[in-house]
């Protein structure tokens, strides 16, 4: 690095790095807030049942929990089945 670069490149302060990292993790954790504690286990159980019949990856099951304002919770389940392997094991 030349001397000129040293003056040009404004080094990012560690505080601004901390702020960036916090904003990301806090937003991520807030989005999960309010979802029931059993959700990860529920996802695992559903995956195990599906695996009895079809070979699927662990990331093929997508479970979304949405709490609407008027006491209505929606559990959305999305399973991506592989194209070639639909017959039972």
């Amino acid at each position, binding site marked *: 690095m030349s001397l000129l670069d040293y003056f040009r490149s404004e080094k990012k*302060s*560690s505080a601004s790095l901390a702020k960036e990292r916090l904003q990301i993790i*806090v937003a991520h954790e*807030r989005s999960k807030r309010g979802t029931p504690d059993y959700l990860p286990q529920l996802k695992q159980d559903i995956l195990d049942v599906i695996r009895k019949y079809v070979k699927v990856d662990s990331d093929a099951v997508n479970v979304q929990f949405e709490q609407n304002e008027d006491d209505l919770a929606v559990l959305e389940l999305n399973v991506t089945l592989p194209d070639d392997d639909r017959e039972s094991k």
Partner: protein
Amino acid sequence: MAKIIVVTSGKGGVGKTTSSAAIGTGLALKGYKTAIIDFDIGLRNLDLIMGCERRVVYDFVNVINGEANLNQALIKDKRVEKLFILPASQTRDKDALTREGVERVLNELKDKFDFIICDSPAGIEAGAMMALYFADEAIVTTNPEVSSVRDSDRILGILQSKSKRAEDGLEPVKEHLLLTRYNPSRVAAGEMLSVEDVQEILAIDLLGVIPESTAVLNASNSGQPVVLDGESDAGQAYNDAINRLLGEIVDFRFLNVEKKGILKRIFGG
């Protein structure tokens, strides 16, 4: 009817007990009858910070179990009138605090006091949940540092979903941010999160900023709540925070690097 205020944080070592002692003492100094309750069962420390560790006879759990009444367990402060401390028990029994027991004690205190300060233990275990459950307001103590800010956000989520006010569908717990151990020169150097940064992330009302100060350790060494040291920066910053808690509008101090005068530069200080 007393207002119940929890001093909480999630992370340990950020200054919850120091802040509980300072704010409780400050409120009593202003003439409000105040009780500070130590919820840290098994790790009692409020008594040391308040300088009354040798006067503990009965504790919070004794009162819950009916082994002592409230008047026997409350320690009256010798310096400030209208200030009382309810020490935590040193038992290792995790289930010593029952919700019914805590509610009964708080209801009894409510009639006689103006403010009840609940000094929460760190973490999100039973003791911390119990300290915040009955709160009307929460002082979220935070250091300008990543793990503390993240844990504070977690505690805010818990206040919004697991407190009695949330469960009963009442007006939500009023949340205040108290930023402690703030070092303006490190903020200026870009080494520490600024007040604005923390406020932007947590998005709650700012109650006070307490500068990192030698006065705080001196105060706990001698068992004197730091607010009694009116000369010190930390003591004054706590006093400002208490005035804001009471609804006053007070300008923020100690946010910028103090410019040393020429004499101070030469002779030190």
